């Protein structure tokens, strides 16, 4: 499913978001950040395995033209109980395809509150902020926060070590279940 380019919201204070689940937790992402939503099964045939030391959340990489998209397991990224993940969000302007459990709904938020300053570790890279919807507080993820520049460097190095990615895609493709 290819998502249409997002329409500019009529009010500057409203932002379209997608609510999604990973290991039972609800998150939000700006729909403008999601380029495509794919079933994980449909992509698995085109993905090749990758192994970067100390980076267990990325196990597969997708070739898209001259670009490599790293498939980030959302559960492992957030330190949650690992789940298989059934959907992939291809994130716009990043090299990340995020593996999630499912989409809850599309909605809009009127207010994004900054993450309180007490939260002072990696979560500051993970989230753009928090939003309150229907008396529930939901973290709004930062698309660039799934892979840091150091992690991307590690993954690029691992890609080089695996040789020609195109050959790998032919020989080492993971068959769809």
């Amino acid at each position, binding site marked *: 499913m290819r998502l249409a380019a997002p329409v500019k919201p009529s009010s500057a204070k409203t932002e379209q978001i997608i609510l999604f689940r990973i290991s039972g937790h609800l998150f939000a992402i700006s729909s403008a950040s999601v380029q495509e939503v794919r079933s994980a099964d449909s992509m698995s045939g085109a993905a090749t395995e990758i192994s970067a030391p100390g980076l267990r959340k990325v196990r597969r990489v997708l070739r898209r033209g001259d670009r490599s998209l790293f498939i980030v397991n959302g559960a492992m990224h*957030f330190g949650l109980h690992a789940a298989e993940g059934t959907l992939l969000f291809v994130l716009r302007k990043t090299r990340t395809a995020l593996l999630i459990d499912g989409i809850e709904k599309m909605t809009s938020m009127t207010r994004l509150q900054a993450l309180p300053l*007490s939260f002072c*570790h990696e*979560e500051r890279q993970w989230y753009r902020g*928090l939003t*309150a919807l229907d008396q529930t507080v939901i973290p709004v993820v930062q698309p660039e926060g799934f892979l840091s520049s150091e992690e991307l460097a590690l993954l690029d190095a691992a890609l080089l070590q695996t040789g020609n990615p195109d050959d790998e895609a032919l020989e080492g493709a993971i068959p769809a279940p």
Partner: protein
Amino acid sequence: MTVSAELELQSFVLLRLGERRFAVSAGQIAELVSPSRIFRFPHRTPRLEGVILRRGRIVPVCDVSEMLLEKRLTSRRFYLIAVRNYGTQREWVAMPVTGECELINAEMMAAVESDAPHVAGWLSHGGEVIEVLNIDALTPGPEQALAGPTAPRRVEARL
């Protein structure tokens, strides 16, 4: 009481955590509220349980019992919402407490170098010597993240 002695008295809120009482400068207290739903999401900051919604504000909940008592208290009666300074910024932080709070006037003795960073001073009340808490040192913030030790990079998120 002379005027000079009167001027030395300050207002404090006494809070209870298990068997112990602690004090916080009354000027740093925003309100005392009944426990409400905590919203939890993945993060890696120690002592933070999640956030509560209070009058439209999202307020982090920080369990200070482990740091102060060396054991975690699961029972809680109220959240004491204190004002935490982050440089020029000020934000609310909610601390679970296990009993009633009390407003008193007392004279504070300043902390000495050997006291823990979270001790702002000491006061004597009702035959007890009570620690006055330094909220800025007790609750997490960017300066503590820089100073470390931090949570390990690859631990289970705190939920």
